């Protein structure tokens, strides 16, 4: 088991600012240390992926595929 460290808190804070459910994410923060390492990584990966998708949506110019000559 690993401590969530600052990353989980930061992910949750940003996701809530994008409209995610604060209560649900708070629950995940509460139980994080009860999860196995694999479960923790799965949760973090999903949160990272969601945040990246939401940030891309708000900055569509940055997400355009680059044209190659």
């Amino acid at each position, binding site marked *: 088991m690993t401590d969530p460290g600052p990353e989980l808190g930061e992910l949750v804070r940003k996701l809530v600012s994008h409209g*995610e459910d604060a209560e649900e994410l708070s*629950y995940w923060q509460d139980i994080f240390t009860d999860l196995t390492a694999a479960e923790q990584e799965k949760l973090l990966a*999903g949160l990272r992926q969601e945040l990246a998708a939401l940030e891309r949506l708000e900055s569509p110019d940055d997400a355009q595929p680059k044209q190659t000559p």
Partner: protein
Amino acid sequence: MMRNHFEQPHGGTPSNPEPATPEPIVEQRAETREQIIEHARAGRRNLLKEIFTSRTADLIGNFLPGIDVPKMIGEALRGETVSGEKLSSRHRFDHFAIAGATSLAYALEFAGLPAEAIAARAAAAVLSKVEYGPEFLAETARLAAERFPKTAHLLDRTATVAMRQRERFAGIGASVRAAFEKHMPAAA
């Protein structure tokens, strides 16, 4: 006939025929913020299901071998109440949490009983004596804290979710118990 809301029409229509030269495929950006969030929530519900299934299977497998726990949990977490109430995305999460925790609490009940007691009373009979409600989760967590500290903490935290959804708990608890009783050895 059921219709998939995410189904996209393929091909052209008489008034809008497909272009002779297919347009280059660019990265799809059809997802809205709501779709991204819902997709992520579905992933977390699946993770929650895996977590409660594995914890329950670990406990029940030790005390009542031969029960198909994933199948049993799958039935308990179908995402609907016994009254067939359709749940919103937010309430589906609470339902998964409460149903998973209730399953886990039932498993802990068995873990707290001597093997002879389970054999003598039959599993379904044990279940029928359990009073379920948010307090059941919290009390089971308290009793299990010494032997199963991490499982107990998970249960205790979920009891807090259950407290907020007290009015829904009875339907969810009954649904879980029905799924458990169906798979448990019946009383002789």
